[in-house]
């Protein structure tokens, strides 16, 4: 037992500093053992080499079919959300697109799920698994909508719930969006542990899993990612029924990779093999995600490059032994948009489409508006999520908070914004222009990480190369070339 058994907080006040430091190291050293118990799953049976593992075998291990997952979610109040065509936004894009251009825009209103976002799809499966396996409660480390989703589903399933959140800087100033997430988790009866900035959030989650014996409702487990497959399948079926063809492109807000992975897998399962999978993140380059001072200089708490790039280039940095979310395996394009563009689109969505929604799905919407301009009128572009908004999460609250923290907010060309210093709101919709990320560079970075983790001197086998090619949506020849280049240094 860590918390409450030996004095202040969850540590022993009388212990020497060095003992406490070793305690943190000791808990991290036990990560494998703790997570094995807390997930009820042994990942080692899928390992094939220091690089390769049986991804599809791991994904299938829980034994639930897509139909079973759909039924579990329906009983949990999750899924079958409205697909809305955005006629006014489409016409707005056509008003400045070239002749014959301007794709039809659609949005999947995932806000209609129980706790207000697509994260309910992930949480519903994690909570179903926890209940089926007989755990008394669940724990998740998340400052995002996933906390609300886990708390809501846990309440329905009569399971105890602990949510660890990175909520404040050292001045006890909280990002208003995260304070709202704390509120909604507590509204659903979760125990919320609000922490200051730092990656030790995850070692503390391990301590709590060890203390309570609860289930690890990880964002990156096979349950959670499988739960998103229903979203991709719904999009494929609904657009095909409406237009006679699968979507031309589906745009997906990307952070840890689960949204891209689950949606793309669902699209494929539903036969949408020609659909372009487009990931989109808010550009927060230059801000350090573990910095106490940078923490409140960003207006987006997720769906940004601070998670999107590191998780795409090394997914196994997650809290599970092997991440089920492997975005690079599925993305055909990766676009970035600025904070100002997303706020502008958020306002436009409310005023033109009657959809007052939060920033997460509107990140993909900004990218979708950008690419729709370059596609013909019979093409279809789908943004596959919305999220709830409200006090704290609302774009006015975010912009006010940015100003209070010294960030300049002004009108102009969004390309001139500098994350953490300025937010530039477009003056005209023509200024919404997503920037293409070089997937070749991301693949190179992924292979470099994989080789580094395999250990010095490890020579990848043919099976490793085939795995890396699949995991980077690339070819064995391209991987061989990267490996040879890295060897030359």
């Amino acid at each position, binding site marked *: 037992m860590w918390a409450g058994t030996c004095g202040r907080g969850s540590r022993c006040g009388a212990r020497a500093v060095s003992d406490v430091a070793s305690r943190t190291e000791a808990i991290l050293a036990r990560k494998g053992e703790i997570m094995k118990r807390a997930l009820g799953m042994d990942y080692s049976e899928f390992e094939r080499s220091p690089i390769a593992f049986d991804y599809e075998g791991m994904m299938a291990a829980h034994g639930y079919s897509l139909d079973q997952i759909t039924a579990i979610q329906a009983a949990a109040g999750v899924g079958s959300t409205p697909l809305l065509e955005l006629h006014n936004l489409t016409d707005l894009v056509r008003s400045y697109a070239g002749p014959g251009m301007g794709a039809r825009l659609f949005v999947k209103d995932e806000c209609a799920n129980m706790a207000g976002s697509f994260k309910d799809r992930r949480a519903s499966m994690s909570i179903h698994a926890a209940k089926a396996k007989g755990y008394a409660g669940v724990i998740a480390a998340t400052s995002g909508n996933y906390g609300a989703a886990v708390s809501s589903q846990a309440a329905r399933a009569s399971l105890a719930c602990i949510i660890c959140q990175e909520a404040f800087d050292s001045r006890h100033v909280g990002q208003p969006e995260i*304070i709202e997430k704390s509120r909604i988790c507590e509204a659903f009866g979760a125990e919320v542990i609000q922490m200051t900035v730092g990656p030790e959030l995850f070692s503390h989650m391990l301590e709590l899993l060890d203390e309570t014996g609860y289930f690890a409702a990880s964002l990156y487990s096979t349950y959670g990612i499988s739960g998103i497959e229903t979203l991709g399948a719904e999009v494929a079926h609904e657009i095909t029924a409406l237009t006679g063809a699968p979507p031309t492109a589906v745009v997906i807000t990307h952070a840890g990779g689960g949204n891209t992975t689950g949606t793309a897998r669902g699209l494929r399962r539903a036969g949408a093999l020609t659909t372009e999978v487009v990931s989109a993140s808010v550009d927060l380059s230059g801000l350090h995600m573990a910095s106490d001072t940078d923490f409140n200089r960003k207006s987006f708490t997720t769906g940004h490059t601070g998670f999107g790039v590191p998780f795409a280039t090394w997914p196994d940095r997650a809290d599970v032994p092997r991440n089920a979310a492997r975005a690079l395996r599925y993305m055909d394009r990766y676009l970035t948009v600025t904070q100002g563009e997303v706020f502008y689109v958020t306002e436009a969505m409310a005023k033109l489409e009657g959809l007052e929604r939060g920033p997460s799905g509107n990140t993909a919407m900004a990218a979708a508006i950008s690419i729709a301009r370059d596609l013909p009128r019979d093409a279809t572009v789908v943004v596959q999520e919305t999220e709830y908004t409200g006090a704290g999460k609302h774009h006015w609250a975010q912009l006010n908070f940015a100003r209070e923290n010294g960030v300049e907010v*002004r009108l102009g060309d969004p390309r001139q914004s500098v994350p953490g210093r300025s937010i530039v709101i477009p003056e005209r919709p023509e200024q919404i222009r997503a920037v293409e990320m070089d997937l070749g560079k991301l693949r190179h970075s992924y292979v470099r990480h994989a080789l580094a983790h395999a250990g010095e001197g490890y020579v990848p086998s043919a099976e490793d190369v085939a795995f890396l090619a699949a995991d980077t949506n690339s070819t064995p020849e391209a991987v061989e070339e990267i490996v040879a280049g890295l060897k030359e240094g």
Partner: protein
Amino acid sequence: MDETMKCAVGDWVEVRYVLLEPADRAANLPADTAAQPLLVWMKGFARAEAIVGEDLSIETTTGRTVTGVLTDVNPGYTHTFGRPAPELTHVGRDLRARLAVWRKGGE
């Protein structure tokens, strides 16, 4: 005394405690983060009477016992929508007008 300054047994309260002192924190943190202790705020039911600033044990929602310094009694939420951003107030008017003009002119 202000009723948010003092708690009775069973009151819903908030406590703060140090989870890790700076010296105990993870390696490779940015300097600004590494210089700070890792703090936690938690809510629960008071196990004793206390005044803000005093040590207090609470029973958390999951029934655990946690000890810290009492920081608030019956803690609430004060986050808001705030005033509109002047950079966005014109967006609805302008875009609706623009659509109307474009539709009038025919596609």
